[in-house]
């Protein structure tokens, strides 16, 4: 069931540059289990869109099937949403993006949706560098079908029913880097201070931006022995760095110790300013990113934060040289060659 949220709000909520307060970015009331990590990610999306001054109707939200894929109903109610079929959100997002390059595309998926049934579409949307944000709400299980292991469950991880997973897990973030994703991050639904800037950076990225968010399923996979529980993730989280957006020319006020900083200039002239950078890691170096993730794994840690960024990606539209005018805005005059041309085509076939 989707409930409409009561519309009363405190009048003094702060407003963003568009004059909207944060409640303008909300959706209908969530029907997920109380405490589900997915709801925190929805809250992060709401906060990020609010802080970035996004016009909700200029964003399209798409998903597959699963508890995670239900969440687009719970944020940005003024955005068009598309809850498609299991594992196929990337193709729908690709078509939508081809039709209108001027909107922001936010795809939400689950670990079952992306790492099993939808693995084919997941890897191919990365190859094409579709300009979209792709969030996997990763709980290591199939929430909606009652807790079966997913392909991201770690080998040896135990779920609520006591079942221990025997198989190797698929590491979506490493895979995304390997496949050439131009923005790859990892985070935790319980760490809003890290998650919100990552979503903002992803939305600002003019190419494929992937965030793998560990998002505990409180009902089926939050027990001792599970490597996707709140406790386990909190204890084993390690960050590559922290970072903020810096508009061009702005003065950097906070001071950090020398040698642990780096700024990355973005396509639109803004900067990402990294602080407290992990050793041997450079956000623009894919190899160092893959090493960092693998090294963390060896230490039984979950590496979070931004893992890799290519600040000047070439997206699918650029690769196939489509018109700058959205294709869905072209008219018969732009598209139809007309009867005279047809006459000459007929002539060629006589």
């Amino acid at each position: 069931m989707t409930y409409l949220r009561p519309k009363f709000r405190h009048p003094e909520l702060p407003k963003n540059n568009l004059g909207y307060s944060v409640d303008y970015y909300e959706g209908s009331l969530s029907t997920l289990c109380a405490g589900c990590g997915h709801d925190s990610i929805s809250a992060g999306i709401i906060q990020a869109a609010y802080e970035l001054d996004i016009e909700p109707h200029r964003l399209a939200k798409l998903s597959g099937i699963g508890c995670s894929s239900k969440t687009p109903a719970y944020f940005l109610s003024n955005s068009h949403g598309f809850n498609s079929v299991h594992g196929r959100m990337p193709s729908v997002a690709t078509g939508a993006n081809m039709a209108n390059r001027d909107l922001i595309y936010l795809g939400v998926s689950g670990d079952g949706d992306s790492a099993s049934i939808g693995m084919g579409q997941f890897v191919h949307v990365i190859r094409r560098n579709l300009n979209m944000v792709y969030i996997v709400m990763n709980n290591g299980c199939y929430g909606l079908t009652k807790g079966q292991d997913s392909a991201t469950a770690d080998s040896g991880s135990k779920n609520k029913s006591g079942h221990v997973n025997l198989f190797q897990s698929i590491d979506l973030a490493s895979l995304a880097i390997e496949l050439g994703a131009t923005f790859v991050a990892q985070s935790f639904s319980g760490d809003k201070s890290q998650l919100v800037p990552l979503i903002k950076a992803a939305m600002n990225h003019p190419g494929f931006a992937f965030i793998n968010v560990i998002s505990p399923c409180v009902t089926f996979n939050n027990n001792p022995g599970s490597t996707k529980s709140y406790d386990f993730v909190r204890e084993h989280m390690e960050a590559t760095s922290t970072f903020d957006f810096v508009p061009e020319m702005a003065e950097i006020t906070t001071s950090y110790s020398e040698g642990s900083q780096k700024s990355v200039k973005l396509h639109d002239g803004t900067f990402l300013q990294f602080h407290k950078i992990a050793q041997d890691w450079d956000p623009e170096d894919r190899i160092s990113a893959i090493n960092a993730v693998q090294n963390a794994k060896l230490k039984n840690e979950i590496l979070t934060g931004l893992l890799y960024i290519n600040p000047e990606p070439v997206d699918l539209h650029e690769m196939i040289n489509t018109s700058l005018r959205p294709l869905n805005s072209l008219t018969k005059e732009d598209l139809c060659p007309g009867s005279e041309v047809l006459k000459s085509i007929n002539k060629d076939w006589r």
Partner: protein
Amino acid sequence: MSLNQVKINDFVIRFANVNGTGSASANYLFCKSIFRMGVPVTPKNIFPSNIQGLPTWYEVRVSEKGYLGRREGIDIMVCVNPQSMLKDVGNVRTGGYFLYDSSKPLHSNYIRDDIHYIGIPLMEMCNEAFTDPRQRQLFKNIIYVGALAALLEIDFKVFESLLAEQFAGKEKLIAPNIKALQMGVDYIHEHYSDPIDIRVEQRDLVGDSIMIDGNTACGLGAVYGGATVAAWYPITPSTSVIESFMNFSDEYRIDPETGKRNVAIIQAEDELAAIGMVIGANWNGARSFTATSGPGLSLMNEFLGLAYFAEIPTVLIDVQRTGPSTGMPTRTQQSDTLEAAYASHGDTKHILLFPSTPKECFEMTADAFDLTEQLQTPVIVMTDLDLGMNDHMSKPFQWDDHRQYKRGKVLDAEALEGIERFGRYLDVDGDGIPYRTYPGTHPTKGSYFTRGTSRDEYAVYTESGDAYVRNMDRLMKKWNTAKSYVPGPHLYQEVNLSTYGILFFGTSEYSTEEAIDILKAEGVQLDAIRIKSFPFNDTVEEFIHSHDKVFVVEQNRDAQMKSLLMIELSINPEKLVSVLNYDGLPITADQIVNSIKSGLSFSDLK
């Protein structure tokens, strides 16, 4: 050679070649020369699912009477493929001709005393005249075309002009081709001075017709119909639909100022992704389509159900081939009828269009974009390998410049301003067709959540059985509305002339028309109807009800169209008599005539 009664402009010639040896363009040259002589002609490519080295046949039927269906009985066999020679010799009709490469003597196994042999030392002649090994290979084919020109008395000037057109810009290729043709002509004049009893004579029977294949026509129809997003996965025999769309897009979809493309064509990772992209693009207001064949259609089922239930325009061109499974991938069939009509789980029905000619491929593809947007449901164009990959004589294509794209019920920002509460699935007009909005239209109005789950009129999720039933019933109402949107059938007579009717669709048209003529000459009158779309409209129903028996011609084993008619129109199965062909080759008039004669006591019919 004995001279029987001369057959003018009425014969079948088959070329037996090895694929990958350049025979296609020579054979096409032969076919086109007859077309240029003003005589109706129909070529069929019978090719293997393989790139090089296997037998391939090209069959050309020449018919003064304008019958464009395939005909059994080969009058002339041109065999340059030793692999298939035994079979090829056997296929020539008694009294027919067998033209072969006599560089090596013909084995006694291949000798029949009831056919004529015309040996031409093709390989020897080529080796003498050409040094380049590629040319030696290619011009063997051109030499036999020259020989045929001499035997059949085709005007040599026709070849000169065809070659000039074919090699415009590469003029130096013309001379060796002419030389090879002339070698064939000369050889016949020197060695076979007696005329054969088959001949081509100049006529004026093709008018302004064109020769083109259905897939090229579909691709062009998509350009004219305003498609801007195409997604696909390669599969014979549908690939050339997209290739055609690409080629025409290269020409007509480049912005002259910016050099940028007014089209996005994506080769997807599979058919699931292809149809997903098409649905995403249509949802977002771009006209979008895909093309596939049986195996791809099977994969697309789940998404087709989504498009049906969530009411998203979708155009799919199904170029059918021989199933089930991988079947005979390079042979034709009409065996996806039921699969397409009811694709996906749950109660679903889809609009089908059945083109019969390249002209209809062009028109129906362009129309499909209007229909799918007007009706907000998938439209599947049901063509087949025979129509899609063979050249057909067709009326020229036409386009009315006043025609506007019918984008259906879409609300813009201004319209939304005037609405209290937008209901995506509200039946405002009573025709079952709701209003839609494109993403990005209005800051606060018109957004909704598209989903494959049940929902109410305002697109809000619900598990209420009542709301679900209301929605399903509205979809049924829309389905009934569709009957007045889709193209009606072609009725061959204004009033019934018989108590027996014959019903057919798609590429069975040519042979069925011929069969009707044959039966008529034998004193059997049949009323005829050609179906062009599903849902069936009232005319189809009336036609069946007003005849005692109706023969249903189709190219599959299970009489799928008959089933569809029975299910949808509650027809008594006894009333529909199937005429079937499913050997992978296009149905022939003789097959239809024989089936009709054996299906009923023939005297009943008279």
